[in-house]
């Protein structure tokens, strides 16, 4: 197994961890972090797979760079919306009953 394939597989594992967190975590900020973890996993898999012949391939690198910038902007917008939601409703989760469930 080459090092670049290891990167791709690590990206796959990150995707899995992110998916698990995205489904199970209730707090919206944690959901956002988990979602970003999925995105990072995709980027890592893309870059890792593209350089499996030794030479890094600039085309996927450019695509990932574009993706990173969009992900940053989307994350910042999500934080703005979460802050606004918290300000309006006083909740950090989408469903109020989940929070009570957590307190038990």
């Amino acid at each position: 197994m080459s090092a670049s394939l290891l990167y791709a597989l690590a990206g796959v594992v990150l995707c899995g961890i992110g998916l698990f967190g995205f489904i199970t975590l209730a707090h919206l900020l944690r959901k956002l972090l988990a979602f970003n973890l999925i995105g990072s996993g995709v980027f890592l898999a893309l870059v890792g797979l593209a350089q499996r012949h030794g030479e890094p391939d600039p085309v996927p690198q450019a695509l990932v760079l574009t993706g990173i910038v969009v992900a940053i902007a989307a994350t910042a917008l999500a934080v703005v919306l979460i802050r606004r939601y918290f300000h309006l409703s006083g909740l950090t989760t989408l469903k109020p009953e989940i929070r009570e469930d957590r307190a038990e």
Partner: protein
Amino acid sequence: MRRSVGTCAVAGVCLAFVITLALAVLDVAETPAQVDLPGLLSESMGKSGVEHPVTAVLLNFRSYDTLLEIGVLVIAGIAGISVSRTTSLEDPELRTTDTLLYALQRWFVPLMLVLAGYLLWAGADRPGGAFQAGAVLAATGVMMRLGGIPMDFLRPGTLLRLGLALGFAVFLLIALASAIGGGAFLAYPPAVAKQLIVLIETVLTLSIAMVLLALFVSAPVNRAEEPGEGESP
């Protein structure tokens, strides 16, 4: 108890997802690529106007992606500043009288501005480019805001909105100009490709920095200024 069973089920589904994805990745890794993309790229590097392959892909061969990306960024920035009411990018509450902090900032801000300029220029032949430079520029703005340096010149309103839209507008204009001139959409004339790319990168840097800074500034909600739900603004 029911909760832990649910978590286990989700963990099982995620594990199955990881295994399927890993098998797919291994399968992709074994099949040879049908198109030799790096070879194609190095053949046409001479036509791109820049020397660094990633910059050539971003701003010439796949500039459509970059155009749509800055479009997404502008939409995110405008959505960000429209959900909160910020009177100024500078927060009077954050204004500092700490002389050490102020002195450090007076050293760092020009340094970071120079670094942003260097990254922008370096994009032509080594790692760097509009996005890295924009990120450094936005970080400079964030530092100035947190450190309390007055930034009255950056008020939300016409100027900020113009700054947000500048990169996208110039990029689209160049793309349309080449289409009207008889070429394909986004195909630069090879003679002025370098100049056009530098122009696009410069305006993109400004716009990206503006978008990121605007999103950073609009994230906190000031309770005193914001109307609550149901209240009239």
